[in-house]
Each structure stands twice: as structure tokens, then as C-alpha cells.
């Protein structure tokens, strides 16, 4: 099974003429992802890497039957791109673009939500369902991922690769790895990805890579404590050093900020542990914990 994307996912790339978009698309195609076209206004009829370009998302969806899009459009146009995809009937929009204004994203999220469209990101590195499909940057070099039973959720794309690699080296494959995005406000939260993993037969356990800031981990712990997520979860919480720093200073991702006492790693660790999550002290401990929880 896997979640979000698989071998049947049909993908349109929004902003396909950009450098990063083409670099990733080349590798997604090599991986076997069904990328079926791109949207660049005013470029209909042209081709990029053998893929047809369309003026609008509506045209692209009509012509290809795509159900997913990847957004590379610059921040100022990101809201428009998300909405264009949602209105064209796209069900999953993965947003690579970072620095999307708050107000824009809040509006885009709620409109997309009403149209039944899920957003991953902004500032997401991508998604990979090993052996089936990948979108975005994640897995451009795919030796780090193998098919298997473990789901990965991380804000950071880099750490998603690290975790995939650690598990792969330990002989444990992955169902789907999701970079939910480094911004404080994202379209799909940890809890919402867990809800998808709960429904997924292939996924037998989940690894969470947590960072300071916000209440996403607390919210996820709430789902787990309430018994609505039943599979083993192993979590690492980064950013302990930030508790020795003045509040209100972000480190790393824009979302990694402790403000008004909210977002402390120690609190996240405690709440996750109390909900039944295996919280590990070293990233290197993750594969063994997963092995234990799978037996």
C-alpha cells in the first residue's frame, strides 16, 4: 500500500521550467514516478524533458488525469499555484517552495481543505514510497531508501535521508517517508500523517524526527494516547541545546522556535513518552528500537 503516493500516482509539476524542478523531475522519472506534464503559463504546446507543458492546471488535469502536483513556483505565487491545483481537482499538492507568506498559506490551506485537497509543505523536501514513486527532492539519490514496513515523518529533508539510510543499513525498509516541511505552519501535521499510516497495511511502525517549536508533537501524542494510533512509534527529539538559549530565537528551520514557553524539547519528549512513544536519546538507537517493536 504506502501512503500519499504510489505507482499509480499521476503528477503534474507546477513551474517545470525552473532548475530545481527539472533536476528533481529527471530523477523522479528515472525512479519510475508517473510524472505526466508540467504547467507553465504561456508555454502550452512546448515540451520539457519529453513532458508536455500546459497553460493551466485545469488543462493539464483534463489532458492527463493527474491527481497530484508538485509546486516549485516562487513564494509570491505559491498560494495561487496551490489554489489552481485544488480547483483543478488535484487531491495532493506537495509544496517545495519555502517562505510562503503566512496569510497566503492560511487562506490557501482552508480553501484547499474545503475542496478536499491535501497540502504537504510548504518548505517540504518531498515524499518517497520506496520502490513505487517519489516526488520532490527526497530520494534523488535513492540508495538510502528500500521498500518495507516503516513510515518516516520529519520536517527536515536531510534527516529524512539520514533516517532512511540508517534503517536501510539495518535491513529495515520503509513504506513512505514524508518531509512535512520546515515552516511553522504546514498543510499536513505529524498527527495527520499518523492518521494515514494507521490506515496503511504496509506500515507496521513509524519513526518521528521531532524539532523544537509549536505543538505538533503534543498534538500527535494526543492521537496516540487516545488509542486512535495503534502502531509502535519511535521518536527522536532534536534541539535540546535550545533550552539553554534565549526564548524567541529560531534555530535551523523557521519552525524551530521556543516561544512563550511553548515548543520545548523536554516537554515534547515527556509528552511523547507518556503517550507510549519510544523516545530515543541517540538517532543511532532508532533501528534497534524499531526492530524490537516489530517483533
Amino acid at each position: 500500500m504506502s501512503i500519499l503516493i504510489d505507482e499509480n500516482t499521476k503528477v503534474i509539476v507546477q513551474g517545470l521550467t525552473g532548475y530545481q524542478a527539472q533536476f528533481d523531475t529527471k530523477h523522479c522519472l528515472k525512479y519510475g514516478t508517473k510524472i505526466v506534464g508540467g504547467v507553465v503559463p504561456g508555454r502550452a504546446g512546448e515540451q520539457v524533458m519529453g513532458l508536455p507543458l500546459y497553460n493551466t492546471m485545469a488543462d493539464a488535469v483534463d489532458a492527463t488525469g493527474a491527481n497530484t502536483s508538485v509546486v516549485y513556483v516562487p513564494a509570491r505565487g505559491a498560494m495561487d499555484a496551490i489554489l489552481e491545483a485544488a480547483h483543478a481537482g488535484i487531491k495532493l499538492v506537495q509544496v517545495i517552495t519555502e517562505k510562503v507568506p503566512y496569510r497566503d498559506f492560511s487562506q490557501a490551506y482552508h480553501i484547499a481543505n474545503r475542496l478536499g485537497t491535501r497540502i504537504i509543505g510548504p518548505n517540504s523536501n518531498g515524499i518517497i514510497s520506496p520502490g513505487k514513486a517519489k516526488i520532490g527532492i527526497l530520494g534523488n539519490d535513492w540508495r538510502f531508501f528500500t521498500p518495507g514496513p516503516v513510515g518516516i515523518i520529519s520536517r527536515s529533508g536531510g534527516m529524512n535521508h539520514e533516517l532512511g539510510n540508517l534503517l536501510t543499513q539495518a535491513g529495515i525498509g520503509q513504506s513512505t517517508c514524508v518531509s512535512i516541511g520546515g515552516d511553522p505552519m504546514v498543510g499536513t501535521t505529524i498527527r495527520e500523517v499518523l492518521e494515514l499510516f494507521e490506515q496503511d497495511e504496509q506500515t507496521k511502525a513509524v519513526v518521528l524526527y521531532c524539532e523544537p517549536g509549536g505543538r505538533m508533537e503534543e498534538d500527535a501524542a494526543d492521537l496516540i494516547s487516545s488509542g486512535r494510533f495503534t502502531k509502535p512509534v519511535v521518536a527522536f527529539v532534536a534541539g535540546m541545546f535550545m533550552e539553554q538559549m534565549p526564548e524567541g530565537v529560531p534555530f535551523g528551520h523557521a519552525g524551530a522556535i521556543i516561544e512563550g514557553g511553548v515548543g520545548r524539547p523536554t516537554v515534547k519528549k515527556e509528552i511523547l513518552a507518556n503517550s507510549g512513544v519510544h523516545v530515543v536519546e541517540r538517532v543511532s538507537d532508532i533501528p534497534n528500537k524499531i526492530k524490537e517493536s516489530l517483533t
Partner: protein
Amino acid sequence: MAKILEHHTKELLKRHGINVPPGRAANSAKEVYDAASELTPPFMVKALLPKGKKGKAGLVLEAKNADQAVTIAERLIGSKVEGLVIKGVYVEEKIDIKKELFVSITYDNLARSPVILFSPEGGVEIEELAATRPQLIFRHPVDILEGFHPFQARAFCFKAGLNKEQTTKVSEVLVSLYRLFIQLDARLLEINPLCLTKGGDVIAAGALLNIDDEALFRHPELESVTSYGLERIMGDLNEREQLVLEADLAAPGSGSVRYTEFEGGQVGFIIAGGGASLLAMDTVVRSGCKPANYSDLGPGKGAYEKLKALIKAVLSNPSVEAIITGAAIATADDIGRTGRIVAEMIQEQGLDTSKVPIVARWAGYNDSLAKEAWENVPGAIYYGAEVSFEQATEKVAELVKKKMEKNEHPHR
């Protein structure tokens, strides 16, 4: 977040039809005296700093007359608070307060919506109120597509226990504040206290406004009044920090670099990426060593110039005993190249690895480029994806501890 100083915030509030106390900004004793002479005493003298909780920090003081205002201002101006120098004060007429309220509008990241917090018990820190009397904080999540209507504001005020007259006036102000929050692309608009006067007016006495950096392009009028990027600076910058900051500001938006030193640290960091930068710090601390600096290099066209400045800073920090450079595994196309360029720059800048050992861990797309370059750096320890980023960081901590045991350290 781009922070707006209080006198500018008050001006913006006024323009949106919200009453504020009459006030003047002043940067010298003479200006303070002149400002006070144009206003009616008594005054509140406030340090102009882009920070909240000023009352508690002793940065808001009352003056009975112009001379007192000058005395207070002379004490404040030029002094330092958490590394920021107070450059001026805001002299404001003290208002005749009957009741103090609290209003804050921000985003609830989980709901992905704006949220209005309101309390009939203003004038104290909200954290304090949340700890002692949380039942007095009322919360209204706003449907951003619908907006915030007067009837909702009225219901909100009644719920918070305001009477009919108070509700009529305060609800109007709440609607105006929300409109300003949205129009200006604010991330935070806090009015504390929002005062009800004995004369029946509603006046915004304390105001804090932060604008979304990423939306500043829509507000050229705010460019001259924002303090951009201050939240990433802690305290005074030393020479090395200043150098890196200047390199960063030289090409705004084109790659990014951050460098913050910690006194007496041992491990120098030359790290790219948000995830890895946190993990590296934690790992070194857990291994019993002290980080010498925090660093985070973000990708972009101008990143290499910024990288050069970062490397120069780390290499010239006399307290650094060993260096870790690298990133979590990445598969954008520049990871291998960046790893190679770091190796080249380090050689160019003449690092002696026999004195300051270096561990490099650059892995991912095209990492053979990095591997090759690092094999040419005498004494450097290079790892690819076969060793995790965490293990590479543990290795550098081990090297530092060995140096300490042999008492080989210090300083170049």
C-alpha cells in the same frame, strides 16, 4: 519576524482608527524635554526596543514632569538590554485608567488560522495570567476566509464579562485590530494594556507589532520602520560574528548563513541545513563537549561567499579545538559540490589539522566530489553515508576529549 518599534506601531494604529495616547519619540535629552513640553504631564517614558515585557524589565517608567522625563531618558538611552542598545525613548501622556484589557492576535499553527486572545485582566504579562488565572483568557479562532465580524466581537466581549457600554466600544476596536493584523500581514499584534478610561474611551496604551518577513514585499511603506532579522541575533556581535553577518546581508535572499559563538566552546561547526545544525549541537553537548558556535548555511546562489566568511570565522576563533563540517544526507544537486568547496576553502585558509583536527561528513547526491576533495586535505577525517551524521559528530567530540586528556590543546 520584522519588528516594528512602538512609536511606529502607534502611528499605524492611529491610521486604522484606534485611539492611542498622545506621544513623541525622542533620541536625546533635549528632544525628550521638547517632546514633554508639547504633551500634558504626567508621562510614561518607554525605551524604544523591539521587545515585549518592557514594563517588567524596567523599561517603562513614569515621569511627573519634563525634568523627570529627561532624567529617566538619560538613564535609558545608550544602555543595553540583552545586547540591544536603546537608541531612543517614546514619551507618552499617562492615561487615566479605569480598566485594563489584553488583546493579542497571532496565528495558531496547528489550526492554520489566526486566533484572537482576549482578557478582561490586562496590564500583566499574559504568561503570568495563563499560569494563575487561565479562566480569564478567552480564545477566538478566526475563520480567515470569513473574517472577524462585529457580532462575533460582541459575543466575545460579553463572554469575557464586559458590560454593554464596554462591549460596544471594545468590540469595534477588536474588529479594527483584526483588520490591521490581516492588512499588514502581521504575525503578532498585541495590545497590553488596552485601556478603558474614566471618560469612557478605549485607548491602546501598550503595543507590539511583528510583521511577516516573507510578506514585506507587499508593504514597501513598512520598509523604513522594521528591524529586520533581529530575532536571530542574541546579544552583542563580536568581530567574527559581525563579519559573517555582513557577508549574509551583502546578498540578501541569496543563500543564507548564520554564525553565533558561545564563549569557551571547543567544537567549531561548519554545518549546512536546519535539521543537521540542531543535531550537531545536541550531539556535541551530549558527548560532554562545548560547541564553539552555532552555524547554519542555507542554499542559494550567494551561498559560497557566505560559506567563505563562515569558514574564516570558525578558523579564526582561538577557542576552537576541533571542527565538524557537513550536513545531513541531501540529494539536491549541490551537496557533493558544497562538500568539495568547503575542503578547498579550508585548505586555502590554511587550517593546520595537526593542531585543529577536522571531521567532514558530506554525503548524498554526487558525494564522490566531496570524498575526492577531502582525501586531498592532509589529516582530515572524511565520512560518506556509511557513517551517520550523528556518529561523525560523536567522532569530533571524541577527538576533543583526547586532546584534553593529553593536555594538547590550546590555542593556536
